[in-house]
């Protein structure tokens, strides 16, 4: 008997009587100011949030904050950003011959799908990343989300995601961090040292 059969047989024999799954009746409080809560929580966990009234201001901000010779990679299409636009080859994104090409990226800019007010997280998938290593290897990550896209809690978030397929989906909340040395919080463990989120109309 293979281990698979052995394990499955033992589980089948030993598992207790099935109990029903609970109903998930957790509606977030829609009366609160979702945008304000999102900003408060994300700022509290080390992220920065900037609200702009036109998308052009994003490029202005990045150019003035990260002057040359910063290597900036933009994966969005509507930014009108004349700096290095990620020019992925025609072959599938993600199958880059050398992923380590990105090891010296200063700033990566990508679109997030939506934000979550209760924890300051932004949902994005491989489709937003173009290359899956990029959001983790860059020094500073810039995410752009629509300011009306913020949902109250993770329950609404998963309702929105549904069962849609992806290669990689992630909730990203703040810069990479650690408190492993005597519980002292340090931003920039292995992933990005900062996270800047733009709320756009």
């Amino acid at each position, binding site marked *: 008997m293979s281990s698979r059969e052995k394990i499955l047989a033992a589980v089948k024999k030993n598992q207790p009587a099935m109990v029903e799954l609970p109903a*998930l009746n957790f509606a977030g409080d829609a009366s609160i100011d979702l945008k304000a809560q999102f900003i408060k929580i994300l700022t509290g966990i080390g992220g920065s949030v900037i609200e702009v009234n036109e998308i052009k201001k994003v490029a202005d901000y990045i150019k003035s904050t990260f002057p040359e010779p910063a290597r900036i990679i933009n994966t969005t299409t509507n930014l009108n950003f004349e700096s290095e636009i990620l020019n992925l080859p025609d072959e599938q994104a993600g199958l880059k011959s050398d992923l380590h090409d990105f090891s010296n990226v200063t700033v990566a800019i990508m679109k997030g799908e939506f934000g979550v007010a209760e924890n300051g997280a932004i949902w994005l998938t491989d489709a937003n990343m173009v290359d899956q290593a990029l959001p983790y290897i860059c020094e500073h990550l810039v995410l752009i989300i629509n300011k009306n896209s913020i949902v109250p809690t*993770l329950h609404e978030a998963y309702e929105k995601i549904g069962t849609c397929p992806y290669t990689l989906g*992630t909730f990203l909340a703040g810069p990479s961090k650690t408190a492993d040395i005597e519980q002292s919080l340090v931003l920039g463990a*292995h992933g990005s040292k900062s996270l800047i989120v733009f709320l756009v109309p």
Partner: protein
Amino acid sequence: MNPQNKTHSELAEKFNRDVERVNWHDKTLWFVREKRDKAAHQIAEWEKLREAASQIKNNVLGNLHEYLLEFEKNALNHGIHVHWASSAQEHNEIVHSIIKKHGVNHMVKSKSMLTEECGLNEYLYKQGIEVVDTDLGERIVQLAKEPPSHIVLPCIHWKKEEIGELFHQYLGTPKGNADPQFLTAAARVHLREHFLTSRVALTGVNFAVAETGEIIVCTNEGNADLGVQLAGVHIASMGIEKIIPRRKHLSVFLRLLARSATGQPITTYSSHFQKPREGQEMHIVLVDNGRSERLASDDFRNALKCIRCGACFNTCPVYKRSGGHSYHTAVAGPIGSILAPGFDMAKNADLPFASTLCGSCTNVCPVKIDIHDQLYKWRQVLVKNGHTTASKKTGMNVMSKVLSHPMVYRFSGAVGRWVLRTMPFMANNKFNPWFKQREMPKASTQSFRSWYLNQRKHEQ
């Protein structure tokens, strides 16, 4: 891990010799517990969430066979290789065979308590393969050739000056620099090199969704993601109990996990891996190692609901004052003390006694495991199976005789009080285990019974 076969109390005694350090350890963990409370109190429906999480996990345990099949089918459809391991040994062999197939001798690994349980690092080391732990805390204890002392905070027992010294020795940082910011930056540079050169990355699994065949890995550092995204091969090791039914159930668990663990609203990265990246190879190893057997036990199966948040560690008065290494097992603390006897009763017979049964662990558990009840039940199983020390057995026998004979009880009480008053050295000596790290109480001249009878007389 415990070469001298020392018991929890022997190892705790060693830890307790440094009073200042014990107080510091105690306070640091209580600080984390307070952060957990603050986060939990901000969620009005917190208790409802715990109840939902508990019920979902109960459903999983009663339907695990079907969920495992559903998970496997979906994962296979996404091009993931699925392996099954009955034992720790088989898990290690499977991981080794994957590494060998790719002809490498170096692998990066993010935090996985399962691989600690299986002793994967030591196994691979013997096969000539170097495993680099990439979680900062885990890297620190790995350089120091120690196991983690906490499942979420692996080097919580280390002081920054000691880490500075360790990094000076291994990473060449300047001697005497103990600034956490500086040391973290040094580790970032050191580990980035490993991320960029490793062709195989192993991660643990926080949750696996039957409905979608995906696995979820949560970290704050981003080390799991960086490892996986820069490697051509992703191996994920998981216990079979990590399955949850539907993707939407993640909302319940992700709301509870980080808040219970560190008081954060969510971990920085909650990554859902559903398919291998184009050109990448992905393996999932499903490990039993005693779990299917535990599923049969009405008393102890609930421990399989654990989501490894560590909240029970941070609140436990015994853990906080005895340190993780006193538990001589991969998972320490209250949850470890009810898991370990299931693996090896004789070796871990001391652990269910490393508790005051105060019940704080049960109160903070996000999936409502009856931890302190199970500690109590394990004690009974252990005694029935003859796994108690002679001194404990003699003591219990004497106690039971004394307590069942009122005259003897009153007499011995009077003798005890007299001894404590007139000859305190008879109790305050190293032969009395209750004297260790404690002052004995001042004895009253009167027993409770005589005080009570007196009071009654006054009332009448």
